């Protein structure tokens, strides 16, 4: 019987992008149990829905998180449009898809950089973020800001995009794809990277189903719950989910690299097929009584948006359930039985976005 100690991990840790606290119960360098607790970045943003009208709430919702900011505004406006029974024009739907996929590319590149940084591979981290800068420059040129874009509004999008800008986006996609293929090879083949990732933190398909995990964590173990499979705009662009069987950290990393390449193809197809027409419809009046739930596939998994109206201009409830919220039990499960040195890798492979979890 070895000696048991409790090591507190976080909230301040060089490998963590955001603060989360884990109490690791160790027996001689093997983790026996991990107990999470959150609440360090809680801002109570959902409560603001009662004092701001539904248009102002868009600006609050997109500031829940910086990395997944476009996904939150996409999901929230989709939910309010469903509640008010508004049909947005096709051009707005395609523009939202293009920007959502660009947002996925930038989020996955950021995550690849953080993974390399946690391993100590600093030059790979810098190169991933250098490639990501091209996407952020595109965002600034079209929407006006690099991170918090304020592009979606209830009824469509705020500004139109000219054909020259769309051609520039397609050019940037070609450049990024070439670089990602080369950098992805480093993650796939380099011995030092493979030693840290292959065979660690294995989740079987049945465990993923029991724990209700979402996103690349589930797709790395072969379970498809990608929300984009049933969305009509994505079906028209020919979307197929990417699945892998191994279930370890390496599989989850490769799912994300492959998703970047897939997003490039989706963006190029959308730019070719985008219809002409209006980019928004005017919206007036207050919110009807009722509720609506909308789901969006964010870079980290399935995001769930629930709004409840009460007849006035303010919503009585606006709820965001983010993918990291439901991946925390999967994290706790993978940490049981792992070595102490693998804890940072396992925490990072679920792509924790704690600001999203705590709103």
């Amino acid at each position: 019987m070895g000696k048991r100690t409790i090591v507190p991990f976080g909230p301040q840790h060089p490998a963590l992008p955001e603060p989360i606290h884990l109490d690791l119960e160790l027996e001689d360098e093997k983790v026996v149990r991990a107990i999470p607790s959150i609440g360090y970045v809680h801002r109570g943003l959902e409560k603001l829905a009662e004092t701001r009208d539904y248009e102002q709430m868009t600006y609050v919702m997109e500031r829940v998180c910086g990395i997944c900011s476009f996904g939150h505004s996409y999901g929230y406006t989709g939910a309010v449009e469903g509640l008010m029974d508004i049909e947005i024009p096709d051009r707005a739907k395609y523009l939202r898809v293009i920007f959502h996929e660009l947002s996925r590319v930038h989020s996955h590149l950021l995550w690849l950089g953080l993974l390399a940084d946690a391993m100590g591979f600093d030059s790979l981290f810098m190169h991933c973020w250098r490639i990501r800068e091209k996407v952020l420059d595109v965002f600034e040129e079209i929407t006006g800001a690099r991170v918090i874009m304020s592009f979606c509004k209830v009824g469509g999008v705020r500004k139109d995009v000219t054909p020259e800008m769309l051609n520039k986006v397609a050019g940037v996609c070609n450049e990024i794809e070439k670089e990602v293929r080369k950098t992805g090879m480093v993650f796939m083949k380099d011995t030092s990277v493979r030693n840290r990732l292959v065979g660690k933190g294995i989740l079987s398909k049945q465990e993923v189903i029991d724990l209700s995990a979402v996103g690349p964590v589930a797709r790395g173990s072969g379970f498809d719950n990608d929300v984009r499979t049933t969305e009509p705009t994505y079906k028209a662009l020919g979307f197929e989910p990417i699945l892998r069987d191994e279930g370890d950290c390496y599989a989850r990393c490769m799912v994300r690299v492959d998703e970047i390449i897939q997003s490039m193809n989706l963006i190029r197809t959308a730019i070719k097929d985008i219809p002409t027409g209006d980019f928004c419809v005017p919206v007036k009046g207050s919110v009807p009584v009722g509720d609506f739930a909308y789901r969006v596939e964010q870079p980290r998994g399935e995001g769930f948006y629930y709004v409840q109206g009460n007849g006035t201009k303010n919503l009585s409830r606006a709820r965001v359930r983010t993918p990291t919220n439901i991946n925390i039990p999967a994290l706790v499960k993978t940490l049981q039985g792992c070595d102490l040195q693998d804890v940072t890798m396992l925490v990072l492979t679920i792509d924790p976005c704690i600001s999203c979890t705590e709103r």
Partner: protein
Amino acid sequence: MGIMKFGGRITKNLFSKPPTLNFLAEPREYTERTRGHVSFDNSDCILCNICGRKCPTKAIHADKTARTITIERMGCIQCGYCVDSCPKACLSMERNYTDPDSSKTVDVFNVPVKEKPKEETQ
């Protein structure tokens, strides 16, 4: 061989210029649509305070008795909602960001009384 996969890129980087900007020595280039700060043109303002009602952070508001428009620069999130909803198009979004400061800058703009055009008598 699984090592030196990154070697080609590293040698290329030894002989090219850095991708970062030498900021403060070279100026930053803003794009046409960059949302930097809100500016106010007082020639047509009617002090209706629609901008104050729409602002998500209550950073801008119109004072009817004092005839001023107050903008709290540090509270503004540059969303552009006031610019879109002003009925007389007095507000516009400029490109440069607000400068950093040690106290919360508040800008107050005066709205002068508009003179009625002199009626022509026949």
